[in-house]
């Protein structure tokens, strides 16, 4: 396969990925999954006292929370036109920038808070769940703000 064909193939597959979206009803499914997972996160400590089982539940619940938010993020609007697409792209861009800034700042914020509260601590890396949570939550929030202000 020539390089030109490989580039064309890559471009085609990237184009397909960038256009991927879920049907509108996945927005409701995503929110339900997120809310149920969020409640389960707190309920896990009531359901069981077994620490290993509890940590397994927490990991699964965190995954389902992120999957729920991803569904909401990828779900189409009832009318998904070019204006909505441009707002969606802007919201992903803002979420990406905020996510990176938050991830870079978070260890220092945590260190500062722990130093004030406990009187000393070390720099800790940000966990992957937090990074993904910030990215998805920011995107959903910014997109919602854009949509709301478009009606004014």
């Amino acid at each position, binding site marked *: 396969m020539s390089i030109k064909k490989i580039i064309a193939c890559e471009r085609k597959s990237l184009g397909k990925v960038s256009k991927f979206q879920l049907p509108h009803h996945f927005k409701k499914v995503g929110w339900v999954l997120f809310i149920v997972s969020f409640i389960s996160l707190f309920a896990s400590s009531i359901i069981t006292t077994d620490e290993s089982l509890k940590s397994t539940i927490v990991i699964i619940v965190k995954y389902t929370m992120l999957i729920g938010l991803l569904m909401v993020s990828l779900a189409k609007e009832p*009318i998904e*036109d*070019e*204006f*909505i697409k*441009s707002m969606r792209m802007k919201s992903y861009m803002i979420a990406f920038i905020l996510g990176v800034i938050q991830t870079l700042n978070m260890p220092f914020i945590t260190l500062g808070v722990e130093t004030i509260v406990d009187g000393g601590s070390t720099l800790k890396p940000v966990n992957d769940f937090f990074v993904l949570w910030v990215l998805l939550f920011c995107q959903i929030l910014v997109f919602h703000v854009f949509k709301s202000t*478009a009606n004014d």
Partner: protein
Amino acid sequence: MTNTLKVERAILDLTQDDLAKKIGVSRQTINSIEKNRYVPSTVLALKLSELFNKPVNDFFKLTEED
């Protein structure tokens, strides 16, 4: 970019919702174009041109900022 979409819409006696349905976009899109918050794509501009039966230049004008 400035536009006279509101005027053209009024000439055809269309609401924002009617116009949105005719060209297959949301009402927010029409609202944002009318308020100069969003510059539509060439495809959408040509759809509007076809509906108003006027060249695009008649209702979309470049400003000095452009």
